[in-house]
Every structure is written in structure tokens, then in C-alpha cells.
């Protein structure tokens, strides 16, 4: 599904070019559960921004379902973000003055769905992430774990090809982290591709494939052996 070849990316800092990514080659198939690990500044966030169509300025070739992403226009990128990928951020990124239901329904609004259809779909997704009856609540009245569930609901509401999660458990305590990870696992079992960035080994160990990045280069790419298999 995702096919990266020779991806490089550099920022300009003053007069110097600072290269974040060096010649990344990566293949991710549909249905995988991938963790990308690395220390701060290793370029892991930059990488998933490229994978998630947030960043269009890079060198190299990114094929998504056999479409060359760099050939697409900005409007088509917006469409890809809307239809093909779901984002989950470390600090949830919910719109604070809108209700939970409206936050979750936002991608559907941009997809052009009717309000009535949106409400039924949002209710369905909220139940799926374990938050029924919170359509009308405001995000600030929910705990961190619940807010992250809302964010996950928003990410999966359009039934995208894959989810991109940037440190989804970074702002949560370990018990809540476990709940969220269980939710991801559950989603993955139902066929959703999940790509997450983390620097927590514990979290990364629960995925099926672990990619380690250091200084913009892939250091290792291996399957995770689970204790019970």
C-alpha cells in the first residue's frame, strides 16, 4: 500500500541545509501494525508527516496505492487526508469549543456528507471506541484517555486506509496507555493498518513490526516476537 523509495528531506536553517531524512526505503502492506521508534530529532515525526500527506516537500518517490503522491495537487492532498488517512496526535488536537460529536464528525463534513448521516455514523464510531452517550459533551469535560479515544474516533470515522498516530500515548499514564493500545490492537485485528511513532519501548513491543530510526536513517526493521506466540 505504502511504498517509499529514496525519500530525503532537508530543512534550511540559516545558511545551512539540515538533512532530516536520508534515503529512506520502506514498504508497508495493508493490515500491518507498525511502530516507528527513535530518539528526539531522529526524523520519525518528519517521516510520518510525509507518509500521512501532511508534508509535500520532500525528495524521492512516494507511491500510495500505485499513485505518485508528489504529482498530486494540494486539493488532492486534502482529499487524501480526508479519505485515506486518520491522524492521531500526542495532544489530541480536538477543537475545544465544539462538542465531541462535532469533532468526530468534522472529517465527514469535509467529505460532503449530510448532517443526518453524519450523526448516525459518529454515534456508531463513538460506541466502537467505548464512548457511547458522549456526543454532546465538550472535550474539556473528558479525561485525557477519553479525549484520545475521541481523537481515534475522529481518525477512523471516514474508514481510512491507514491510521497515523504520533506518540498517541505520550500524554497518558501507563494504565490509560494500555487501554489505548488495546483499542489500536482491536482496530488492527479488524483490518485497519496502524502506523505509530513512539519512543516508549513497552508500547512499541505491542505492535507487530518495529522500525528503529536514528539520525534520519532506518537502523533496523524487524518483526516483533510476542511472548505468547
Amino acid at each position: 500500500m505504502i511504498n517509499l523509495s529514496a525519500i530525503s528531506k532537508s530543512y534550511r536553517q540559516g545558511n545551512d541545509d539540515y538533512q532530516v531524512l536520508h534515503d529512506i526505503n520502506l514498504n508497508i502492506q495493508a493490515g500491518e501494525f507498525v511502530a516507528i521508534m527513535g530518539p528526539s530529532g531522529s526524523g520519525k515525526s518528519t517521516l510520518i508527516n510525509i507518509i500521512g500527506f501532511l508534508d509535500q516537500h520532500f525528495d524521492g518517490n512516494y507511491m500510495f496505492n500505485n499513485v505518485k503522491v508528489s504529482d498530486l495537487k494540494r486539493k488532492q492532498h486534502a482529499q487524501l487526508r480526508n479519505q485515506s488517512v486518520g491522524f492521531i496526535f500526542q495532544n489530541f488536537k480536538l477543537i475545544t469549543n465544539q462538542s465531541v460529536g462535532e469533532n468526530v464528525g468534522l472529517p465527514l463534513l469535509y467529505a460532503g456528507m449530510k448532517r443526518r448521516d453524519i450523526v448516525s455514523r459518529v454515534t456508531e464510531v463513538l460506541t466502537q471506541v467505548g464512548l457511547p452517550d458522549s456526543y454532546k459533551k465538550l472535550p474539556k469535560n473528558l479525561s485525557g484517555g477519553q479525549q484520545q479515544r475521541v481523537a481515534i474516533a475522529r481518525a477512523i470515522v471516514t474508514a481510512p486506509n491507514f491510521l497515523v498516530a504520533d506518540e498517541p500515548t505520550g500524554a497518558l499514564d501507563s494504565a490509560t496507555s494500555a487501554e489505548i493500545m488495546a483499542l489500536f490492537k482491536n482496530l488492527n485485528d479488524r483490518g485497519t493498518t496502524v502506523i505509530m511513532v513512539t519512543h516508549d519501548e513497552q508500547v512499541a513491543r505491542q505492535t507487530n513490526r518495529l522500525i528503529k530510526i536514528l539520525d534520519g536513517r532506518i537502523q533496523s526493521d524487524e518483526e516483533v516476537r510476542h511472548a505468547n506466540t
Partner: protein
Amino acid sequence: MQTRELFVSAFRSLLSNKRRSILTMIGIIIGIASVITILALGDGARVAMMKNLQASTSGEQSTEINFSPKGENIIAGFKDDDLNRIRENKQVTKAKIQSDDQGMLSARGSVNGKNISPAIYLSQSTNDDHLVTGHGISKQDVLVSNPVALVSQSIAKKGYKTTSNAINAGIEINGTTYTIVGIISNDASRGSYNTYNVVVPRQVFEANNADVSANTLKLTFVAGANVSKETQKIADQLNSSGSQHNAGSYDFFDMAAMLKGVSTVIKGITYFIVAVASISLFIAGIGVMNMMYIAVSERTQEIGIRMAVGASQKQILWQFLIEAVMLTLSGGMIGYLAGLGVAMGVSAFLPFKASVSISTFLLAFGTSTIVGLVFGILPAKTASNKNLIDILR
């Protein structure tokens, strides 16, 4: 995204910042309200003037040509030949000789040997308006054409010292003697302008003064005719070949041209004041721009989230643009109503009514939309051009 949703979300974000929205709107309200007030009053003044052009409800307009004989001669200025020639003009629907449209005219006469030049009201039927003593012109007087007259207190006193002496005494007007049957007050008037001091029955007066009274020609024109030009043409023609062109002159006092001139001046003044008032609209527009810039920087996160879940740049641009237009448009509509209210209130103390036309509504609607678009486009552009990666970091 459906267009309706854009409006709904714009409306809600305005509501979520009520105080700021209202404060920004006040500028627009004041601007639009003052423009509408001035336009409504200026238009009202103009309409009141144009009404004096005597356009009838069907759009017909009428003018008058007067014949004034040279010297003291009393001659009828209009003969059948003249009328027939005028009636050949396709623009003229009616050509009628009459003494005076209002039934008011001034004459020469004497009372008890003293010369007077009274303003005379020719009464068509019975009349006892402004009567002080005696009795008015009765049905009987009209029926048998009795030469009776009502005179003002001052004329009565001038001729006969007291009003009671004047009753049943005589008054001579244009050579005819009338019997004074009643005394009217000195401020007797028709309408608010036409004061008069003698009333006589019209039939009696016209029977005795046919020549004098027949010197006004009333012309009625078809709708849309250029009445000033046509009437001037007829007057010129009468002056060169009319039946009495050697004995006097045919004059046309062009009321229409004068009123048109005045209304042009009123229009000019109105537009000038409107231009001054629109400066406040400009300032209000800058206020809108300022508020939109603040809103954009406050809601950077929201913009980022919306873009991350699939909003295109265009949709973000429209969201903020619609917000700005909605703000100015609702301000404009409130200002329109306020302006009408003020204009109505002010016109209660003025001799004319404020005029409400669909064009002023469209003006308020259009202006406030344009202000919203012009001053909203830059902040909206800023919002839509934000770099997604920078926002979400």
C-alpha cells in the same frame, strides 16, 4: 463540505465570541444607518418636490400657458383655432381653457369708493369657510347666480368702518357690483398658502369676466412626454402665430425645469453627505479586518486540525470569508432598519416623508457584503495559507 455547513459553522464561531462580534458590528451599523437615513430623507425631499410637478396617478402631467395682454386691454388670448392646432399634437391629451386651477385670482375693484386689489376665491358651490358674521354663499345664491360676496374683516372695515355696516353693502370687482352677505376672517386660506380676502360664486364671476378669466390654457400630456419641451414649443408657436400674438404674449412658466434643477441640487447634496458618511463604513471595515486577523491567529490550532482532517485551502478561505461577510451583512441589515427608523422619526418633524425604496435596501445589502468581502479577504487568505506542518508541531 456542503455550503450550508460553511454558514452554520461561521455563524457558530461568531456566536462563540458574542461581545467581540457585536462591538465590531456597531461600526457597520452606524455607517449603514447614517447612509440610509440621509438617502431616505434626501429621496423623500426629492419625491415631495416631484409631486409638485402635478403628475397624475396615471403618469400624465399637465402644464399651463398664460396669456397676458399688453396694456389695460381685456382680451381672450385663446380662440378655437389655437386649441384645434394644439390638439393636433399627439403628446397632448387635453387642452382646456380655464380661469385658474385653484379658483384663486387677484382682481381690481373698489369698496365704498376706495380702490382695493383683493385676492378672490371663486367658490363652485355653497361656502361659509372662515365665516365670522353674516351668512355664507347659499345654495340659492349659486342656483340663481346671485351677485353676493363674502369679504374679509379688513376690507369691510376699510370700506365701512365696522363689519356690521358692511353687511348688505356693495363691493365692486372688475366692474361688477356684488352684495356683501358675510364677513370672513383675515387669515382665510385654501390649503396652507392660498390666502384670500373675497369670496364670490364662480358662475357669477365668470359670466361677468369671461375675457379676463379665459387666459389660462391647461395642457395635459400623455405619460412619459417631455412636458417642458412640448409646452415651450406650443408657447413659442402661439407667440409667432397665435390668434392674439400681436396683442400680448403667451408665457409658459416652466415649473418642471425649475423643480428638476432643485431636485438635482438635493441629489448632489445627498450624495456628498453619503460620501462623508461612508468614511465611517471604511473605518468599520478596518475594524472587521482587525477582528478577523485576531480570530485567525487565535484559531490557528483549529485551522490546522481542519486541514489535517481534509479541509482544502479553499474551504478554509471560505470559512473565514463567510464569517466576515456574515458579520458585516447582519450589521448592515440592523443598520438598515435603524436608518429607516431614524429617517421615519426625523421626517415626523419635517414637511415631507422619508422615502423607502428597494434600491436603498439593495444598497445596504450590497455595501455591507462588499465591505465584508474586501476587508475579509486578506485575513482569510492568511488563514488558508498557513503551513500545516508549522501549525501542528
